[in-house]
């Protein structure tokens, strides 16, 4: 027989005004299993809690019901009190007779009757409550950051500065991401490289950051606190340890005219190359698609020239494993590829703009390189076709964004701002030049943002037309841009030298595959899904995996950095103890009765169900069954509902407890 103590709270007058607390306590005393029933003015106050502690000891209570307010208010308080008296805290239940009784009824008799009923269900339940202890999951206090752009660098540095080791994985030969290639940044126009390069160097030299560049995540197993990541180090043909980064190989390489990925084809690089001079690590890589030695066993000049003997044509992909406790995804974005294959539409999209046909129609990242002081033209704005300085530039916003017909329905968020920046940078370089902007709406929410756009228009004299461009043609070396000025209600034709398309932002290539490996979701456009848009913006549905930067949604540098620090702090919170303590009110599965239909596995929102094989001591398979991964389960109990044999059950709300409550209503 249970020894349950019931404590009825008056909550001053809040409960006692409408509920006859004496009567409730009296009725409770009669309930089966109840050892003692008391009432008091304020159960949550110190004397009230002391009363509970004292009764647990004196009456040797094995379960407690506190009839007072909502469990969302004070369940933790009372469970702490019970624990202090040596009672397992999960053997304490609350009956909500305030929010759901005394405050919403005025008929004292009926409210009292209802209160007794509420306590009865709680008493019925608590008899079956299991004594639980928090689940401890060992925590590997080491993080992996995927993506070495500004967000990834920020997250890695934050975590490393807090004293934890970080594995930073970057697909390209150098960290730095898109930001490393930008010219100047809005709204302050500070030089992108000047602010990013020191951070890159810091990350590269940090004693607690292990860099994997030119590497990709191959697979991940395990769960929060205990991930094991396999990383593929792609063939570089350069021994990172021996190489000194002197650059002689680049100078001697005869195959110098390969379009530079870093310059988005605006400049050229040799077959052995560092993507840009400030690359971290400052080590080159050989492009195996063009290198004459690799393609047809010719040349080999770099090998001969390299004094430390760092060139290794026998190099191969390597796999490395890293154990980490948390993963931050910061894989960033790419631009909507204008005029090429699109995700959905059958047409190639924006053929009317002649991108890819006219050399002087370029996208925004190409323009960044053209105007960047470290770019292929050393910051002198020369148009791609003939190297002339454009006396007029047309900027077109929303190319691919907000276009249900042949682009993407969402707003890419940053284009309005960088287009304004582009006009300014252009006007600062070519004082006599004309900057024209065609836009749909100007979206410049942010600190100093709208002021920035107004400055481009009012101070630097950029001409803004609200309207779409309908067609671009080329005549005698000029681009003829025909569009609409919907505010004036007239068609506009601009003869110009260069056109810059503000192409939409899309998640980087391969993000869907990565999401699959990490068991996280992405939306229909491939942006990674946060766990809750407001309250859990950097968490994902897989515990221990976090997102930040433009892989989650289009965003600018300040936002990406802020989100990266947020993700880093979430990681650091989870690293604050050597064990992860989790609420024990989660699911469990009786493997003896489990029929291994795995309905739970399909249903679980957290992928917390694993398939296990139960074997006899001699190794024979006895049966297969489902098992709950305690590191992943959040305790929703959805598995219980779909389990036909109810082999699955959820602690805190077990079948016995719940049925006892329902039966207590009768």
């Amino acid at each position, binding site marked *: 027989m249970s020894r349950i103590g019931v404590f009825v709270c008056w909550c001053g007058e809040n409960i006692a005004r409408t509920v006859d607390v004496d009567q409730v306590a009296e009725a409770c005393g009669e309930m089966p299993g109840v050892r003692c029933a008391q009432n008091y003015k304020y159960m949550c106050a110190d004397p009230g809690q002391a009363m509970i502690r004292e009764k647990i000891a004196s009456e040797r209570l094995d379960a407690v019901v506190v009839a007072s307010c909502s469990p969302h208010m004070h369940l933790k308080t009372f469970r702490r009190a019970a624990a202090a008296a040596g009672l397992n805290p999960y053997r304490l239940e609350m009956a909500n007779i305030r929010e759901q009784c005394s405050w919403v009824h005025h008929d004292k008799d009926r409210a009292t009757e209802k209160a007794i009923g509420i306590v009865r269900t709680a008493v019925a339940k608590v008899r079956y409550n299991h004594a639980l202890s928090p689940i401890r999951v060992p925590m590997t206090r080491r993080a992996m950051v995927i993506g070495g752009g500004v967000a990834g660098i920020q997250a890695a540095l934050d975590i490393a500065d807090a004293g934890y080791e970080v594995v930073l994985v970057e697909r390209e030969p150098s960290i730095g991401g898109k930001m490393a290639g930008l010219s100047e940044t809005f709204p302050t126009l500070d030089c992108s490289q000047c602010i990013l390069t020191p951070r890159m160097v810091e990350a590269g030299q940090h004693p607690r950051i292990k860099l994997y560049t030119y590497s990709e995540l191959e697979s991940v197993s395990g769960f929060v606190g205990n991930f094991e990541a396999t990383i593929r180090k792609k063939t570089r043909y350069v021994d990172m340890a021996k190489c000194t980064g002197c650059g002689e190989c680049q100078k001697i390489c005869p195959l110098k005219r390969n379009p530079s990925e870093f310059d988005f084809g605006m400049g050229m690089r040799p077959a052995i190359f560092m993507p840009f001079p400030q690359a971290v690590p400052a080590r080159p890589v050989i492009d195996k698609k063009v290198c004459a030695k690799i393609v047809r066993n010719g040349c080999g000049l770099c090998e001969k020239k390299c004094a430390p003997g760092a060139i290794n044509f026998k190099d191969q992909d390597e796999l490395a494993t890293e154990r980490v406790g948390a993963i931050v995804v910061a894989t960033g974005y790419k631009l909507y590829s204008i005029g090429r294959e699109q995700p959905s539409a059958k047409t190639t999209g924006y053929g009317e703009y002649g991108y890819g046909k006219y050399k002087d129609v370029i996208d925004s990242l190409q323009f960044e390189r053209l105007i960047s002081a470290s770019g292929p033209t050393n910051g002198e704005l020369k148009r791609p076709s003939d190297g002339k300085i454009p006396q007029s530039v047309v900027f077109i916003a929303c190319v691919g964004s907000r276009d249900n017909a042949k682009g993407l329905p969402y707003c890419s968020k940053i284009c309005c701002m960088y287009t304004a920046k582009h006009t300014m940078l252009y006007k600062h370089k070519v004082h006599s030049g004309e900057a024209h902007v065609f836009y749909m709406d100007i979206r410049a929410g942010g600190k100093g943002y709208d002021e920035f756009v107004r400055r481009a228009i009012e101070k630097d004299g950029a001409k803004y037309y609200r309207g779409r461009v309908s067609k671009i043609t080329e*005549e005698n070396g000029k681009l003829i841009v025909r569009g609409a000025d919907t505010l004036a209600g007239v068609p506009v034709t601009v003869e110009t030298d260069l056109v810059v398309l503000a192409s939409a932002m899309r998640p980087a290539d391969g993000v869907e595959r990565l999401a699959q490996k990490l068991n996280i979701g992405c939306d229909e456009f491939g942006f990674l899904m946060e766990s809750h848009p407001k309250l859990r913006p950097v968490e994902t549905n897989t515990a221990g995996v976090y997102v930040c930067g433009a892989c989650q949604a289009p965003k600018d540098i300040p936002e990406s950095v802020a989100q990266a620090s947020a993700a880093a702090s979430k990681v650091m919170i989870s690293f604050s103890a050597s064990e992860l303590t989790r609420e024990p009110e989660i699911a469990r599965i009786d493997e003896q009765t489990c029929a291994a239909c795995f309905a739970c596995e399909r249903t679980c929102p957290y992928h917390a169900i694993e398939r296990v094989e139960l074997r006899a001591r001699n190794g024979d398979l006895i049966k297969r069954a489902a098992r709950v991964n305690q590191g992943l389960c959040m305790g929703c109990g959805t598995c219980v509902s779909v389990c036909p044999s109810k082999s699955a059950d959820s602690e805190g709300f077990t079948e016995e407890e719940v049925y006892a409550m329902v039966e207590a209503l009768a």
Partner: protein
Amino acid sequence: MNFGYYPGCALHGSSDDYEQSIRACLGALGIKLEEIDDWICCGATAAHSLNHKLAIALPARNLALAQRQGCAEMLAPCPMCSGQLLRAGQALASDAALRSEISSIVEAEVNDGPRVLNIIQVFERVGLKALSDAVTKPLKDLKPACYYGCLLVRPPAVVGFDDAEQPQSMEAVVAALGAKPVDWNYKTECCGAGMTMASPETVLELSGKILANAAAHGANCLVAACPMCHVNLDMKQAAIQEYSGARYDLPVYYLTDVVGMALGLSASELGADRHFVLAREA
């Protein structure tokens, strides 16, 4: 190779030079055309702007007739007609109720009608390699501006043919003949088309721009695949020149004319001698 054939009114009217050209050219390639028996007008823009049901019923009747005749693929050289046929076909395919209503209106069962092809698609069926092999007189000196106009590529959802903004399929055909198509800017601009009667100035202006751009890009002729475009660019060329004061004298060929010439047919066999602007030397 056999195709059903829906000529449409224009090709049996003032643009019968186009029909002559098609029959001669495709005949030389060994393609047989089976004209849809007792076909009726597709309704063109008139039905479209005046009566929606009629705009579906008229083409549907022809689709049904073609189906009755057992043809799987049907050439409709006039883009206006093929657009109407395609539009009606799509409307019927997606709506069973409409299908049965229209079936009873047109007194013929309409199911999956034939696949409607434009003339370029017929050459694609022949194959560019086969076409190029059949050439006896390569058109080395021809620098055509391939002109698609509106309805060959628009609206993309209806015609589903080539890139609506930067089409290349006609260039591929003429290149297979040894000609050197010029890259120009007005290949999908409108010539004024339906305004021939109602607003002639519109035609003179729009068509004038097309001719000017073709000439500026070094074309020595235009190649079209639409009877209405041909009328505006060829028959009206004199009026355009008068209106704009510029001289172009650009012959305007049907695509089948240039293919036919490369196959060794003469201008008179193809009916190209009946155009208004004739090539300067034979």
